[in-house]
């Protein structure tokens, strides 16, 4: 009984703190992955709308950011409404994003010359409201700027997705610097799912949840985005499946 009363007091206090922080409304709006193992790790049971999320690739992916961009595209595809995609390097090949369920009529690209303009465009788009998601491909994301983006997202409830990609692999330790983003993910490529015949199966990723506000870090082995932008859990590399088969083309 005493325990229950204490819980009641604590939960009441929590509510009041949330009210003061102005986060009560935000946490209710989340985009679940539909995978309990991942959703349980995130406060509210999914990726929060009205927040900034950061993605980067691991290994060679720090430079091309291909997996991180596709992961972000899959999330954007599952939101509703228009998506604004800000970038400086126009090497994104849209047919791949269309295969992850992002229809071209939903995406507006903003190509700018300078890195700072990406940040300004993202902030403008986040503050505009009524968009599904705002994606930006960035090299640097300083603390102050990330807080501005986070606040703009909180105000309108639009999801901000920052895809970090660096010019050199050695610059990627910048990803350890703190930012105001709500979650931080690293997506690294893994060997694809084995097929009974020769060929390349569904791509797999090693998904690291490196940082999450009010939550704990976690790591997952997942299958890459399918035609509707969803990922699924996939067995890890430790089960010996990958080592068993010799490449059919190496002999």
């Amino acid at each position, binding site marked *: 009984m005493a325990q229950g009363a204490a819980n009641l007091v604590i939960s009441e206090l929590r509510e009041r703190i949330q009210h003061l922080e102005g986060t009560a409304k935000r946490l209710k709006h989340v985009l679940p992955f539909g995978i309990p193992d991942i959703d349980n790790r995130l406060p509210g049971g999914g990726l929060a709308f009205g927040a900034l999320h950061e993605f980067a690739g691991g290994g060679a992916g720090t430079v091309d950011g291909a997996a991180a*961009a596709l992961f972000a595209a899959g999330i954007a595809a599952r939101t*509703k409404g228009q998506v604004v995609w800000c970038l400086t390097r126009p090497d994104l090949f*849209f047919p*791949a994003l269309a295969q992850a369920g992002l229809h071209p*009529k939903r995406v507006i690209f903003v190509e700018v010359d300078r890195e700072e303009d990406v940040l300004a465009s993202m902030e403008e788009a986040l503050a505009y409201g009524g968009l599904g998601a705002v994606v930006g491909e960035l090299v640097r994301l300083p603390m102050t700027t990330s807080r501005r983006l986070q606040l703009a997202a909180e105000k309108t409830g639009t999801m901000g997705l920052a895809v970090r990609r660096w010019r050199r692999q050695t610059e990627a330790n910048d990803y350890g610097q703190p930012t105001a983003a709500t979650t931080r993910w690293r997506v690294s490529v893994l060997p694809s799912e084995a097929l009974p015949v020769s060929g*390349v199966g569904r*791509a797999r990723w090693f998904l690291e949840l490196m940082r999450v506000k009010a939550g704990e870090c976690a790591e997952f082995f997942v299958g890459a985005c399918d035609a509707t932008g969803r990922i699924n859990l996939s067995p890890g590399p430790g089960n010996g499946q990958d080592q068993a088969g010799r490449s059919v083309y190496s002999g």
Partner: protein
Amino acid sequence: MAAAKAQAIFHGLMLVDADPAADAAALERLTLWALGQYSPIVAVDAPDGIVMDTEGADHLQGGETLMVTGIVNRFRGRMLSARVAVADTWGAAHACARAVQRETVIVPAGETERAVEGLPLSMLRLPAKTVDDLRMLGFKTIGELSAQPRAPLALRFGPEIGRRLDQMFGRLAEPIDPIRTPELIEVSRAFAEPIGAPETIDKYVGRLVVQLVEELQRKGLGVRRADLIVEKVDGTRQAIRAGTAKPARDVAWLTKLFRDRTEKIEPGFGIEKLTLVAVMTEALEDLQKSSALVEDETSDVTPLVDIFGNRGHRVFRVAPVFSDVPERSVQRIAAAAVNDETWANHWPRPVRLLARPDRIEAIALMPDHPPASITWRGRRMKVKRADGPERVFGEWWKRDAELEAVRDYFIVEGEGGERLWIFRQGDGVDPGTGSHRWFVHGIFA
């Protein structure tokens, strides 16, 4: 050349009498068209030219170079030839457009003197008699004349030479008096005391926008291009042009477009008058919106597109093109355009496509096996898994050289899981179809 002599050279030459009045009227029509199209401050540069102040307006055409070539191409489309020059001052642009034997001339900022010093004296906009007299004295170019001491020249020819030279080199301001028609919707506000603070400018711009929207409302019009013209105490003008992707009559939307750029206004000694002109308008009817019980209404993003566009960013959507060649399968379309189609292929496509395929070394069994290993950017990658080939044929209807060209695309996966999109030029048998060299073209997620 005399008409009789010309007729003697060309048989059946058609002669038309000069009609200066009609020429002037046509030039004025052309000037009004340019006002709506290119710049807020446009005037007739009689008898044979148009002068425009394009500062702060060229971004709507994609920059100076694109604007200038665009103008020339538009005239060429009507079987007319135009000469266009961009320079720091009216005088320099006038001279360069007429004297330089090229269709387009862009004089970089601060290089006026180098550009005009070799041009003949007749480009100085002086009376014909003065030019003749100067020639008699041995002057040929503007550079020679500008190197002379002023006093003797002024004593002999009056102050006109000095004034034109100063105007050309930007030492003396030469405001352009813009052409106007009664149809233009214009609201203005004059100030008894010059204003200069950004907050004050913002406030009055807001009020002008409200007035302009009221005017537009009465006429049932929406604005596509609007100019804010700032007249300063020292007689100079500055103009800011904002364009919208579709007709607009919304106070908040238009105010945002101008306030976004008030920092570009240099008040100098103060602003005497602010004028807001709707130079390009289109009919905009009020629409009744049906209210639905279910809320699946997508918000209109055109105002956001306009904000980006007026900052000079490239805003676009992508649409599919029916082509098997990857780099040709995507096209950029305007952000306001509507497109419902998507790519129909079921083969996986890479997230990043290299602008130029990167040459690699590959060890592969010909003709249709994927490589066993490749070397890209100095790193060797052993191929664990691969898929392919996907054959893409050259589009002979685009280029003759592609008649027999073939590319065989493969997806290859390395030991660490890195997936690349590579192709071989040629079908592996017939050297006529390609060089059989290998390239990386894309990176998969």
